[in-house]
């Protein structure tokens, strides 16, 4: 696809290593997608939107955040369109451009909190992840049921010795911060996902 007339579609092709024009709309991706029944724009339609230059609709779709990255679409595509990678590319672009669907902000907040967590510790620390994620969602949604929805799990996990009050940190956290800074193109001092 031409560069000048389709900046988003070209970025999607470059990030996903896939050629969108290869898709002939057979619908096999959507037929196998476990989330398709809930999606505003299931995989086949998302690819079509990109082919037609309707990139803003693709970037704002709920479906790109409902996708569970199961890889069924890419596995079954007869044209070798890496649809799951297209989903990743759309998520990244939509996140960077701030066009992620408000209806899916919890999922976006979770992915961001996860990356911030590993940038800080090098390994996932579950308790701070949940605290930050739930806290951020609560500040925006003011939903008390969501805030406390998993509170009962704490004691259950503790009983099974699955709760780590003090999480693990890698020794060389400086290098982790520098990797994040370089990969995300942000200054090392506050290098992060965005």
């Amino acid at each position, binding site marked *: 696809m031409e560069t000048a007339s389709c900046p988003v579609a070209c970025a999607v092709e470059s*990030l996903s290593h896939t050629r969108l024009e290869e898709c002939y709309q057979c619908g096999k991706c959507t037929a196998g997608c*476990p*989330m398709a029944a809930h999606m505003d724009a299931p995989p086949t339609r998302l690819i079509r939107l990109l082919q037609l230059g309707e990139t803003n609709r693709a970037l704002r779709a709920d479906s790109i955040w*409902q996708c*569970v*990255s*199961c*890889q*069924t679409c*890419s*596995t079954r595509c007869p044209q070798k369109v*890496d649809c*799951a990678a297209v989903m*990743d*590319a759309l*998520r*990244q672009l939509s*996140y960077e451009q701030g066009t992620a669907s408000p209806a899916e902000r*919890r*999922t976006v*907040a*979770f*992915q*961001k909190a*996860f*990356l911030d967590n*590993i940038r800080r510790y*090098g*390994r*996932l*620390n*579950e308790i701070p992840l*949940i605290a930050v*994620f739930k806290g951020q969602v609560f500040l925006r949604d003011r939903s008390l049921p969501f805030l406390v*929805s*998993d509170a009962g*799990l704490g004691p*259950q*996990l503790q009983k*099974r*010795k*699955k*709760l*780590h009050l003090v*999480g*693990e940190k*890698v*020794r*060389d956290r400086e*290098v*982790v911060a*520098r*990797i*994040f800074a*370089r*990969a*995300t193109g942000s200054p090392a001092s506050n290098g992060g*996902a*965005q």
Partner: protein
Amino acid sequence: MNLAYYPGCALHGSSNDYDQSLRACLKALDVTLAELDDWICCGATSAHSLNHMLAIALPARNLALARRQGHSDVFAPCPMCSMQLLRAAQAMAADPALRAEMSSIVEAEVDGGARVANIIQVFEQIGLDRLKAAVKQPLKELKPACYYGCLLVRPPAVVEFDDAEQPRSMEAIAAAVGAKPVEWNYKTECCGAGMTMAATGTVLELSARILENAVAHGANCLVVACPMCHVNLDMKQEAIEEFAGRNFQLPVYYLSDVVGMALGLTAQELGTDRHFVVVEA
């Protein structure tokens, strides 16, 4: 056998029962695990969703550590970690410029040649005949639905393992230790993966279908090889039961639990007493 071990965050976190099970089971089979020193998170779904450079760089750092610590093969029991390591290795093998860039980003020389094995491949390396010979307690009563989920077999171009639509490798191992795996339809359907916290409804809906199909085909347990699948199907099973309006009470074992039980290891040794669904034998 000596294996470089990349446990990943889940196995050091709330899926530490999987780590315990693997260590106990593999020790009984004379496999020693050398955990990679100072390994970092692979980035999982969050990295590949938000930043594709990070999704290569984080696994690349671990591949570089493995190389620096003298390992050409890495055992990564979490399929998410395994897939991310393989994806990064392949991307770098195909693109020398990317490999050079990554070596600079992660401050260590990365080669794209590392081999990454999942738990099924480790059991296959040990050999099904050896497993069969080591059985002390044949699992005649066990009728597992072997559940592969997504990333053990998909995408096939990356993981190059078994058949993406109709895998059989886990059944072969379960059968070798005396279990009677059932035929069923949902062995490669998604459980909802990392949506446990962010979109719980998705997990309840997808995981309910898996439990329903396993039970409908006569399974008396599920066998998994993924920490995330275990969280969704075991830890969330009570919530799934409430969602589906029926009881399952279906134990969910890791593949290493099944082999370990046949080797005569106890629930305390394997950590199956720490699962959420525990059925008295």
